[in-house]
Each structure stands twice: as structure tokens, then as C-alpha cells.
């Protein structure tokens, strides 16, 4: 590699200046769809994070929920009640509040699940790429076999197995963890493959050799030296996987193996609403469904944009 002529000793630009100057911000401002998607995601995240303060009622406080209020249509329909903007569900819970709380549960499960998947995937990918040999082929064979099956099937299977292991424990206490474990174990493969690929390249570079010669232990080299150089592409996978994880959670809850009705996510709300579709109570299923669809669509759009913006070939 040729030696670069030393540029004049300038103050390195501040972080803020670098952000303002970056291609990524420019491409963000160019794409209106992305900006709308970002605003939607932001609003939904804030709504979920602060739901106990934003929601007009606490839908899970038995003292404020009355069965007499069950199945009230949205406020603008005949028989609607201005107290319940989007109507109520079968137990008299305010649907608007229930959606905010459900969004919170869905996002918590999604984020934790994706975090677990990324942790497992990155760890195994680093190990496989850095150590090579038997460790590598074992981990990658497992990944291959798992990749043969759709994630939703694996999530269902793991859900069943984990619940079999937790048998006897109260379902309400364990449901959230069962979901996080199922999602984490179903989505790790993509991270492992990506990280392994870049680790194989980095492993032979001079700085890794130097670190090895200095006598640093392998775990330290992997974490401090290799990891920062291979972590980049993971960001895009994280975003797209969040949408998938939210869908998976909703699907499992809809199938009745996810979160129970006492602690509903968006999927549970949809599955409750589905039972009242035929009696004409369309709002119980529609509003949570639309919320879920908007959330997933917006996160997907952000993920697509991020993938293109970070891809140097498309610049």
C-alpha cells in the first residue's frame, strides 16, 4: 500500500459536524418516504415507552375496568362513548390504552429477542471465524440445518420445548421470557454468518497478527480488535430483524402460545378481536391490526433505506 501524503495537521471535525456532513444524512433528507417512516417509528416508540403516562386509563387495573363497558364501538359511531376514543374490548378495557400497552409489550419482546439473537449470533460468528477448524464447521453446520426451516416454525417449536421445561411455573410469569428465547434462538443464524464472513477476512490482517504476537489472549483479541471491525453490517440486520421479530411475536401470540390475555401484546389483542369479528365488533381487531401493520411497514422501510445508504456500491 502506498504511503499517503500527510495532510495539513487540522483539528479533526467534531462528531456533530461529521454527522451533518455525512452521506447518510443527505440520503435521509432526500427520501421523503424514509423521513415519514422515521417519524412514525419515533412516535410509536415514544407511545410505547411512555404508555403508562400517555394512556388515558390503565387497562389492566381491575378497579377502573368495568365489564358493563364491554364492546363499546369507537367514539364516532352510534353508541360510542367519548371516554373510549377507539372503543372497548370484550372485558371493557379502553382499546386505545390497551393498544399503547400492547405496543409496549410487543416492542419489548421484539427488542429483547433481537438483542438475544444478535448476541448469540455475534458470539458464535466470532468464534467460528476466528478459531476456524472443527468449531467453525460445527457451528456452521448447525446454522445450515436451522436455515433450512422457516423461523416461525422454529420459534413455535422452541416455544413448545421451553414451555415443557418451565412446566408448572405460572404461565403469566414465564410467557415473556419464553417468547424472547424463541425469537433469540430462531434469528441468530444471519448474524453468525455475516460476522463469520468478515472475521475470516480480518483474522489475517496485520493488526490481528500484531495483537497475537504481543501475546493478548484470544477472547480479548476477538472482542477488542476484531469485533469493532466486523460489527458494521449487523446494524442493517438488526433493523430488518426487529420487524420480523415483532411479526413473529404477534403470530405466536395470535396462535395462543405467546402472551396471555392478561398481559396482551398487539398479537394477543388481534386474536381477542378475531373472536368478535362475526358479531360486527370490527374495531377490536382492526385498530391493533392496523397499528401492527404500520409499525412493521415503517421499520421495514427504515431498514431498506439503511441497507441502501450503507451500501457503498449504491452511492
Amino acid at each position, binding site marked *: 500500500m502506498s504511503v499517503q501524503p500527510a495532510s495539513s495537521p487540522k483539528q479533526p471535525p467534531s462528531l456533530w459536524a461529521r454527522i451533518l456532513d455525512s452521506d447518510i444524512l443527505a440520503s435521509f433528507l432526500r427520501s421523503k418516504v424514509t423521513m415519514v417512516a422515521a417519524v412514525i417509528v419515533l412516535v410509536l416508540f415514544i407511545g410505547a415507552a411512555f404508555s403508562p403516562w400517555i394512556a388515558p386509563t390503565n387497562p389492566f387495573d381491575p378497579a377502573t375496568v368495568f365489564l358493563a363497558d364491554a364492546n363499546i364501538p369507537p367514539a364516532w359511531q352510534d353508541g360510542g362513548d367519548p371516554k373510549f376514543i377507539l372503543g372497548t374490548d370484550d372485558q371493557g378495557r379502553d382499546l386505545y390504552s390497551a393498544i399503547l400497552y400492547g405496543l409496549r409489550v410487543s416492542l419489548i419482546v421484539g427488542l429483547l429477542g433481537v438483542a438475544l439473537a444478535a448476541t448469540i449470533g455475534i458470539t458464535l460468528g466470532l468464534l467460528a471465524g476466528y478459531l476456524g477448524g472443527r468449531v467453525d464447521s460445527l457451528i456452521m*453446520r448447525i446454522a*445450515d*440445518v436451522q436455515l*433450512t*426451516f*422457516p423461523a*416461525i*416454525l422454529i420459534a*413455535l*417449536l422452541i*416455544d*413448545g*420445548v421451553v*414451555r*415443557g*421445561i418451565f*412446566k408448572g411455573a405460572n404461565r403469566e410469569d414465564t410467557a415473556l421470557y419464553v417468547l424472547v428465547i424463541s425469537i433469540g434462538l430462531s434469528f441468530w443464524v444471519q448474524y453468525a454468518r455475516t460476522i463469520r464472513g468478515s472475521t475470516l477476512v480480518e483474522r489475517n490482517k496485520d493488526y490481528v497478527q500484531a495483537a497475537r504476537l504481543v501475546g493478548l489472549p484470544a477472547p480479548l483479541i476477538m472482542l477488542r480488535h476484531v469485533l469493532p471491525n466486523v460489527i458494521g453490517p449487523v446494524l442493517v440486520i438488526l433493523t430488518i430483524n426487529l*420487524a420480523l421479530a415483532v*411479526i413473529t411475536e*404477534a*403470530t405466536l401470540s*395470535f*396462535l*395462543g*402460545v405467546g402472551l396471555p390475555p392478561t398481559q396482551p401484546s398487539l398479537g394477543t389483542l*388481534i386474536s381477542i378481536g*378475531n373472536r368478535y*369479528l*362475526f358479531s*360486527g365488533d*370490527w374495531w377490536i*381487531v382492526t385498530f391493533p*391490526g392496523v397499528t*401492527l*401493520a404500520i409499525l*412493521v*411497514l415503517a421499520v*421495514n422501510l427504515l431498514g431498506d433505506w439503511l441497507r441502501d445508504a450503507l451500501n457503498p456500491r449504491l452511492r
Partner: protein
Amino acid sequence: MLAYILRSLMQGLVVMIAVAFIAFSMFRFVGDPVVNMLGQEATLQDRAELTERLGLNDPVPLQFARFVADAAQGDFGISYRQGRKVSSLILERLPATVELAVLSAIFAFVVGIAFGVYAAIRRDGWIANLVMSISLIGVSLPTFLIGIGLIYIFAVELRWLPSFGRGDTVKIGWWTTGLLTVSGLKSLVLPVLTLGFLQLTLIMRLVRSEMLEVMRADFIRFARARGIPERKIEFRHALRNTMIPVITIAGVQLGGVIAFAIVTETVFQWPGLGALFVNAVQFVDVPVMSAYLLFVAFVFVLTSLLVDIVYVALDPRLRGSALVPAK
């Protein structure tokens, strides 16, 4: 060519053994099979007898070998919950799922290719743009929401189509079919649309982008220069060359059809294997879960083998050569 197919056969075998091991571990180590079969009240002597009869005192490798041998003969044990043989439960439910999955795959494939080709040829037309936008939404919507939406429109509001079950079925031997009665056919419409929709959007987007790519290739320009009619170029030359990636993806997608059949069957209360599996997961009915897992793995391995054979038929470069093509 033979080496190529043998290689994918070997890979399939490895997958099957790995999956069999997982299924066996589930059966053996998730909960105690003896307690599950006899219930909590059984006497110690009953338990000891059943443990011996199931061969649970033997070394684990021997148990695994026996499990594989039984499974290969179609014996998956007895459902904890229903107390019936898992194999007969599966056979009973198989026709419903097969009819649903095959019709959905055909629907997705035919409509997906047609729309994809159209969107590629009339790239800037408004219909093409509309189709592409709908497909983007289709990719983001969870299957069960699409199903619920269709039920609401066609079953609740319009009352055109039934929303659950298979309708009337006709028995042919042990196979039950919904294809021969009006109510059976009507019952199929919504589940097939729901299940096929996601695969349709994926296949369509893939065909479109591959088609656009191929239409820029040199041999298409030469074909034009030779004065071959545009229609013939599009279908004879371009479409044929887009088929290889499409078939790969379609093969993988068939797995998706089976996985999402679980969701679709639950939405439409379709009496198929997917609904059986969801029930098994709800009640941790391990023999049914592991049998379903093995069944799905078998279908996947079989499809990818078929896809490999179709490759050879479509790609002349593969014929007569033992080399795996550089992709």
C-alpha cells in the same frame, strides 16, 4: 450430473439425521415421557413397567437408533393428549394440508410469474406501479392479518365465502378431498389466497428484477438485432433465463408455504397438520411435535432434491458434467 444429485442427496441425509436427533431429544428429555403417558396418579410399578416397555432403561444411543428405525416405519408413538397413534393423526390430517399447500403454491407461482413478467415489460405503466406497491405492503403484513382481513371482507360483509373448515369432503380411499364439492371448493378460496399471497409477492418481485436484468443482457440485444419478434424474445429467451433463480426461491418458498400453513390453518380453523401442530405446542404434546418436525424436514429435503433435479433439466450447462456450476 449424477454426482451433483448424489451430493444433494447426502446433504439431505445429514439434515434428516440432525433433525431426527433433535426430535428424539425432545421426546426423551422434555418432561418425563412415562409421567406424561400414565398421568400423575400411576403406581411406581406401572411406571417401572412402562419405562421398561418403552426401553428407556437402555443406553441412549440404542434408544436413538430404535427411535429412527420406528420413525422410518411411520411409528411416532402415541399422542400424550389424544391417546391415539400419532401416525394415524397425521394421515387423517394430511389431505387437508396437502390440498391447501399445493393449490397455494400453484396460485403463487402462476400469478406471481404473470405479474412479475408484466411489471418488468411495462415497467412504467401505472398498473405495474400499483402491483409493486401492493406487493411491498404484502411483504410487511403478517399472514394472519391478511387472513382476518379477507374473512372480514368476503365472509362477514359480503357473505360470499365460508370462513372456516373444509366444507363437504369426499372420501377416496383414505384420502379426503374438498376439490369435488362446491362447498369444498368455496372453502378453499380464502385460505389459498391468504397462504399464497406472501409467496406470490416474493416470486413476483424476484421475476421482475431478474427479468429486468436479463433484458439488458447481450444475447437479448442480439436477438433483437436478428429481428426476432419482441413477444418471442420476452417469453422464449428472457423468461427461460429468469427461471433458474425463480425455481430456487420457489423451492425454498415451499417451506414457507408449509410453515405459514400453520398460521393460515389456525385462522381458518382448517383441519390440517398445521392446526394439529399448534395444538400440540399449546399442550406440549411432544410426540406430535417431533413427528411434525420430522415430517416437515422430510418435505424440505425432498423439495430441495427436486429443485436440484429441475436445475439439471433447465440448465444445459449442468448436463453431462459432474461439476457444480459456479453461481
